[in-house]
């Protein structure tokens, strides 16, 4: 009876979604907003080849700021909830092969993450992807040797500093009279080179550091409440 009721609700929702499918006839051209972003004048004003990066950092920069705030809040709440249990932990020793290869791989993966968010305005990638890659390097390190104490203060200091620099760079644009989160506070440079697109690589690098530190913090919290038996 209960399931029948739920089924009716879902079928009703599906029939509400049906007109969206039947009236959708595919896009043959861009929407007006995207055409505004893709105009040659506006592209040369931002000077970033990757338009997604331009939108995330500059046009919709406030959204990114709110997103980073939400991530910070979830990390803080998780840290508040998961206090470390004081139990004795019995773990199997990892094999030497795994430990050695993890030691070799972790710096390379961190370097790959840094490469991804530094080149975020030239190729696919950016702060969020790079942060996720850095967090996966941290999880590899934690899996290989579960007793490593991550330097908690270091991660928190990194996260706070990057957040402050992000907000500071955003406010600098307003102070210079260009607009909040404008990227023209640094020289725009040549299209398609590494040092171009004004403040976009700088801002995205700090976003990447912040996201990486936050995700690492969350994973470290989840790892430290384990009690393997």
């Amino acid at each position, binding site marked *: 009876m209960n399931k029948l009721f739920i089924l009716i609700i879902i079928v009703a929702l599906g029939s509400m979604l049906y007109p969206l499918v039947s009236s959708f006839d595919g896009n043959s051209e861009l929407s007006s907003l995207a055409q505004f972003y893709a105009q040659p004048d506006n592209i040369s004003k931002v000077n970033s080849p*990757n338009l*997604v*990066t331009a939108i995330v950092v500059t046009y919709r920069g406030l959204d990114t700021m709110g997103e980073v705030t939400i991530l910070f809040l979830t990390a803080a709440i998780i840290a508040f909830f998961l206090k470390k249990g004081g139990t004795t932990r019995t773990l199997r020793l990892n094999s030497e092969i795994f430990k050695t290869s993890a030691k070799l791989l972790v710096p390379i993966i961190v370097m790959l993450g840094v490469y*991804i968010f530094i080149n975020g305005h030239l190729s*696919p*990638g*950016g702060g*969020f*992807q790079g942060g*996720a*890659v850095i*967090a*996966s390097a941290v*999880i590899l390190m934690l899996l290989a040797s579960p007793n490593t104490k991550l330097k908690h203060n270091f991660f928190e200091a990194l996260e706070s500093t990057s957040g402050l620099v992000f907000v500071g760079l955003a406010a600098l644009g307003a102070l210079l009279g260009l607009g909040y989160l404008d990227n023209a506070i640094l020289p725009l440079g040549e299209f398609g080179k590494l040092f171009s697109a004004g403040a976009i690589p700088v801002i995205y690098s700090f976003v990447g550091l912040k996201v990486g530190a936050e*995700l690492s913090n*969350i*994973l470290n919290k*989840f*790892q430290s*409440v*384990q*009690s*393997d*038996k």
Partner: protein
Amino acid sequence: MSFLIITVLLGAVMLAMAFIAIYHKKLIVAVIATGALGLFASILYLLLAAPDVAMTEAAIGSGLTTIIFFYVLNRIRTDAKEEENEA
């Protein structure tokens, strides 16, 4: 045309993965199926010309989410064992 076939196949596999994730008896298999759903979704994003989204989904949706689920499952399993020992 080949893109069309690949898309249909991917969609069918994704629906099957969602079904497994909902109805399989073992929680571990359900979590793995969720991760596989994320991985197939990242291929779909690549076909839809969104490489940025595909990278994010591959790193987060199939990697980190699965690992967090496994940490929680491990913790819950050990808790349940302790309870059995006491009782």
